[in-house]
């Protein structure tokens, strides 16, 4: 599965928003109404799923699906 597809699947499962409504430019806060604690949990799921560690200070820059996808690609 492509990285972006996998990210969307994780976000969809966590937010209960249908995957077809989540695009590359979807913003976690503006479009999905996630709060800061939701974001932490989301990043923890990403870490588990992708086997990486996302530094706390980096999470502030990860605002969209695209941001996360690109960041994860740099980790691999």
């Amino acid at each position, binding site marked *: 599965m492509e990285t972006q597809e996998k990210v969307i699947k994780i976000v969809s499962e966590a937010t209960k928003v249908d995957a077809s409504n989540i695009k590359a430019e979807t913003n976690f806060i503006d479009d999905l109404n996630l709060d800061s*604690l939701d974001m*932490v*949990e989301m990043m*923890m799921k990403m870490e588990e799923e992708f086997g990486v560690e996302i530094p706390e200070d980096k999470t502030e820059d990860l605002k969209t699906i695209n941001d996360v996808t690109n960041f994860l690609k740099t980790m691999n």
Partner: protein
Amino acid sequence: MNVTYSDLENKIVLVTGATRGIGNAIAKSLAKNKAHVVFNYRSNPESAEALVKELKELGASNATALSFDMTDYESMKSSLDSFVKDHGSISGLVNNAGVSKDQLMMRVKPDDIDFIMDINLKSTMVLTNHLCRNFLKAKDVSVVNMSSVVGMMGNTSQSVYAASKAGLIGFTKSFAKELGSRKMRCNAIAPGFIETEMTADIADKAQEDYKKAIPMGEYGKTEDVTNLVLFLLSGASSYITGEVIKVDGGLYI
């Protein structure tokens, strides 16, 4: 009277400052409730090992001693990380470690303030902060902060101590609000005079005066505090959060 809560069985609970005083009584009461009791110690591995043995004999499903000083944050974090990796998530935390150095405000030195604030307030927040990710993965999380009735009413010669304990109340309420949506709870206990080694050192005349100020006329026993800790850690208090509960025989009404 000792109470038991069946849901505390196998619950992993970290108690700071458990090698003596009220913390020690809390660790033992948790052991009797078959919890997995975790505590830290600063020095003396032999006495820590003896406490592990005692807790297991009292019924603890497991007991683990972690070697770290409350103000050595790196050692605290690595010790907690390796514990969680080996044993799983900590779902109960009793922030009990605390110190006092009573003296008139006019005699307090900046170092005295650092000493009390670092242990009573800062290290509690650093430790809790470090366990947040662990809490998000755990179930039935309950944090109990040991404040003091002095943090609510103030006391002569205890300005710094009172400030640190009042600080814990603000911390308790904020943390409860922050994590309430995840069904995690955080409460504070404010003991008054409880019979421990610390109160045994108070001169007889002063003891009499203190007791006169307590409507119930006597000091509390450690089990008066431990029973409340057990209640707050268990699901029996599942809808109580951000609360400060005094255990003081009416000292501060």
